[in-house]
């Protein structure tokens, strides 16, 4: 393979050898002399007043160095960060300290920590802490919690609703659309959808090592995080250290899915304890803690009304969202609905009028926040289920209904009724490819045959879009750029330092591919470094499918700057005008006379070592780019899911899954496919199996993997995947993110297939055997 063909080549991930041979370093692999261990005391109640905490027995336990409660943090450790406090949150509602003070508000709420010289000792002493709780009534159901008279998490605010907001001033316009549609013989379909609560369950739970060196007053924090720089900045502010005296190192991360896009109490507590005691402090979350106290995803109730003409043209949509935030705000808890769901709630369709309102509500459950897709799966589920409801009402094929309403390829850039501007797309081409791959006509015939035999077969379509690659500029109260610093060493090898924090997405490979392509040098000569705030430029981290479109664009831009400088140096070496110098296949030459050239390595050596550089040229080869997107990017595609449901047991099986996705240019199709496979599986998990269940008293009933079901390879068919390529015009690589698309597209495809199999209007997820059995047998 030629180096020039590096981009778009399906090379294997460079990360994998160390991962699959067990030579990668995770937080728990870090061992330091004098290390202490932290154990966290958590509330067994969902809502209770703390009358007293007796720590005496724990403090006397052998090996225990300290026990801390909220009282010890007062004036020393600030509150847990919320990025954009909205409504009553801006007045303090839902903001918590690192340890519960006076009250606990969810099962798993941390209220004390034990620091001991062994992990066992810390855990044993935890059981010796005696807390006098006064249990309080709980608010668990988001709709009931929003009503007057519900038990209150924050009594001083007199309500659990932090924010009630309409994106439109009044409902006059949408009411008029609905009335006109009905008057003209059209339909208005209504439904209530529950988008259930999910537990992210990264294979590696959270973990942190905090090491405060008293002599140089510097805190080093290793954390399994998606956001090293944000973590560094927030921890510094929260524990009262200057930013340059805090270093965050993110070692290998065993999955995040949004759950590590946060600043957690334990990161603050370990830092505090290390600063107090002058020893490194380690905390590794156990699985049950992770399920109870790491953020959860989704959890909302949607009321949707959608209107369409008799011919199937959608005329307007109205949606109300009850967003269940759980007990406290984490970093992005309160912006999921407004910033990530509402902008794309029209999906792939040209819907003239949309009306959106929401109530964001606190309940006695774990905080919700970003989980793979974050808002966009909720939007996609709502619109894709709604389109099927319209098709059912009009007795139309859901494919035909979608085709009729798609935004057309000549409408881009397309401004949706939500105000969101879609960068590029060609929805019908992706759909047709999926239909062909699936043999859609054949599937419908097979379904008719099976139905005649009394079998329940269903076919579900989902034509999703998503908005990713955040930024853009002006979207958030802070700049959501990404950064890259590239250094060409004197030997001609290249170091790329990125502010992104890839943790499974494979950018150590794809970023190197970008540089390899741009410089025309072998990928082996390039190393990509990330995840250390002392050695990487300020960045915003990896989430929201932003690393390649935003971070990749920064790498590309920095490479261009270096190329220009190297051309200038080469022009002196070649005695030519800089504008005539070209770089191809690792050689600088003068346009028109390729025989006269200097190599990439020659120029690198000259730039770094020569003492005869022209006085106008600064020595060295290093360039930094901070790249800030002007727009989101909008991947899209069509997924088709085929299911069969066992009438006797209600057990559903996915028999086929077809996905055609478009993420613009693909830097590495192998990695794109990997992301699609993982994403689809995670979305299937929500549809089929997953759901955090709290008992009536607020106990988490799905607190271990014995009770919380997740998809396994054995449950799934072999996916048939393909892609179309519609480049994005908003970044120099023409790429769109692909980390979340599979998850966003798959959940509604499965839901539509199940509903189709059973021939009903709607069923809430997850599609457990008993739930389907009851519907089949009308219990």
């Amino acid at each position, binding site marked *: 393979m030629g180096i020039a063909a590096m981009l778009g080549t399906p090379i294997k991930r460079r990360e994998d050898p160390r991962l699959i041979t067990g030579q990668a370093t995770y937080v728990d692999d870090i061992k330091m002399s004098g290390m202490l261990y932290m154990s966290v005391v958590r509330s067994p109640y969902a809502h209770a007043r703390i009358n007293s905490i007796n720590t005496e027995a724990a403090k006397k336990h052998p090996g225990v160095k300290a026990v801390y409660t909220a009282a010890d943090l007062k004036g020393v450790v600030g509150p847990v960060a919320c990025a954009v406090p909205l409504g009553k949150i801006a007045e303090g509602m839902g903001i918590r300290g690192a340890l519960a003070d006076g009250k606990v508000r969810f099962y798993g709420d941390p209220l004390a920590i034990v620091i001991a010289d062994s992990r066992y000792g810390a855990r044993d002493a935890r059981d010796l802490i005696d807390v006098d709780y006064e249990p309080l009534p709980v608010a668990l159901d988001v709709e009931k919690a929003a009503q007057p008279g519900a038990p209150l998490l924050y009594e001083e605010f007199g309500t659990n609703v932090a924010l009630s907001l309409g994106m439109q001033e009044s409902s006059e316009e949408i009411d008029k659309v609905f009335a006109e549609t009905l008057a003209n013989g059209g339909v208005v379909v209504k439904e209530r959808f529950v988008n259930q609560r999910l537990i992210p369950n990264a294979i590696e739970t959270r973990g942190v090592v905090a090491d405060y060196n008293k002599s140089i007053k510097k805190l080093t924090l290793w954390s399994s995080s998606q956001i090293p720089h944000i973590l560094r900045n927030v921890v510094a502010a929260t524990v009262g250290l200057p930013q340059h005296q805090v270093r965050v190192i993110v070692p290998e991360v065993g999955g995040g899915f949004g759950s590590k896009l946060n600043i957690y109490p334990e990161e603050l507590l370990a830092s505090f304890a290390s600063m107090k005691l002058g020893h490194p402090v380690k905390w590794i979350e156990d699985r*049950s803690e992770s399920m109870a106290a790491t953020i959860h995803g989704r959890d909302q109730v949607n009321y949707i009304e959608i209107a369409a003409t008799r011919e199937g043209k959608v005329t307007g949509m109205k949606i109300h969202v009850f967003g269940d935030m759980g007990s406290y705000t984490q970093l992005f808890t309160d912006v999921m609905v407004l910033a990530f769901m509402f902008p794309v709630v029209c999906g792939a369709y040209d819907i003239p009028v949309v009306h959106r309102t929401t109530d964001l509500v606190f309940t006695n459950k774990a905080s919700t926040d970003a989980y793979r897709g974050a808002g966009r799966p909720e939007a996609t589920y709502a619109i894709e289920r709604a389109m099927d409801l319209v098709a059912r009402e009009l007795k139309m094929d859901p494919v035909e209904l979608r085709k009729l309403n798609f935004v057309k390829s000549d409408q881009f850039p397309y401004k949706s009724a939500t105000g969101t501007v879609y960068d590029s797309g060609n929805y019908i081409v992706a759909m047709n490819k999926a239909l062909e791959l699936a043999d859609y006509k054949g599937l419908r015939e097979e379904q008719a045959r099976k139905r005649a035999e009394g079998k329940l077969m269903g076919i579900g379509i989902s034509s999703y879009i998503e908005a990713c690659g955040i930024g853009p500029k002006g979207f958030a109260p802070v700049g959501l750029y990404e950064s890259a610093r590239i250094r060409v060493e004197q030997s001609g090898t290249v170091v790329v330092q990125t502010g992104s924090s890839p943790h499974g997405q494979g950018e150590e490979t794809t970023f190197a591919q970008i540089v390899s392509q741009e410089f025309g040098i072998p990928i082996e000569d390039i190393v990509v470094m990330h995840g250390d705030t002392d050695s990487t430029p300020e960045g915003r981290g990896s989430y929201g499918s932003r690393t390649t479109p935003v971070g990749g664009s920064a790498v590309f831009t920095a490479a261009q700057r270096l190329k220009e400088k190297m051309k200038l140096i080469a022009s002196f070496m070649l005695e030519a005008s800089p504008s005539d110098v070209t770089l191809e296949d690792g050689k600088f030459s003068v346009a028109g006379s390729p025989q006269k050239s200097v190599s990439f390595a020659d120029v690198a050596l000259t730039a770094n070592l020569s003492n005869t550089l022209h006085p106008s040229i600064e020595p060295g080869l290093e360039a930094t780019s901070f790249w800030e997107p002007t727009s989101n990017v909008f991947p899209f595609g069509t997924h088709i899911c085929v299911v069969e449901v066992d009438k006797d047991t209600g057990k559903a099986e996915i028999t086929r899954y077809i996905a055609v996705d478009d993420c613009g240019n693909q830097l590495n199709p192998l990695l794109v496919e990997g992301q699609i496979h993982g994403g689809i599986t995670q979305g299937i998990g929500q549809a089929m199996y997953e759901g955090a*269940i709290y008992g009536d008293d607020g106990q988490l009933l799905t607190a271990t993997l014995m009770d919380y079901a997740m998809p396994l390879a054995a449950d799934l068919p072999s996916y048939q995947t393909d892609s179309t390529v519609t480049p994005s015009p908003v970044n120099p690589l023409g790429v769109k993110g692909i980390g979340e698309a599979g998850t966003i597209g798959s959940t509604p495809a499965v839901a539509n297939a199940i509903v189709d199999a059973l021939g009903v209007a709607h069923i809430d997820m997850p599609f457990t055997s008993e739930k389907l059995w009851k519907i089949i047998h009308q219990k």
Partner: protein
Amino acid sequence: MVPAAFDYHVAQSVDEAIALMQQYGDDAKFLAGGHSLLPTMKLRLAQPTHLIDLGRIQDLSYIREVGDTVTVGAMTTYITLQRSDVIKRYFPLLPEGIAEIGDQQVRNRGTIGGSVAHSDPAADSPGMVLALKATIVARGPNGARTISADNFFLDLFATALQPGEVITEIRFAKPAAHTGSAYEKLANKASHYAVVGCAAVVTLDASGVCTAASVVITGASVKPTRASAVEAELVGKKLDEATIAAAASHAADGMEIVSDIHGSKEYRAQMATVMAKRAITRAAERA
């Protein structure tokens, strides 16, 4: 998840294991494969202060043909049973059911004796042992005794074992000619334990009439439960679809059915019928 402190004792013989158990009494637990015990210890639901490891005892892992009986040492692992030609020939129910247990790591380490002694009502082995009408050999301070499987499983995690007793062997009587068996399981998607399972063993005569039937339901109740009403409806009849369906409809008769987030009482009762019908149908086909 780390367990509370405990002392670990390696028993070199059954006698030593029994003596250690006498010494430490209620504070001690026998450790077999550990795949049920260790998770509960890590969650601190169980906090024994002494573990007596049976894993080093010579000669508790074997499969022997002894006349009309096959004897299985209590510490025989699932994987050993699954691969045994003797077991495959006489008791194909076991490898079929064992394939449904946990994952490969669990099958590599888990033992049949450990599972039977633990008596998890949703586990697979107790139901199969009961369906095969096995005899459990236990030894304690007062010597050895045998307990029929029908008298062994008493309640939730409760068996006929006396304090200090350890299972040493499980004996299976070789089946009559024209005996078929099958295991059906509707698994809890998270734990892969049975929401409801059914182990069925039927024997037919030359004319296809059922002469013996053993049908056991797991997962639905507090213990693996013999579906006597189903068996009574099968014996003496030709096992056509209607007969099997009619018999299976009694699968939950008289059973104390449990309910949790993985299955309501109503669902489990109905699934007992569905699993029984499927298991009996396949068992009859194989007889």
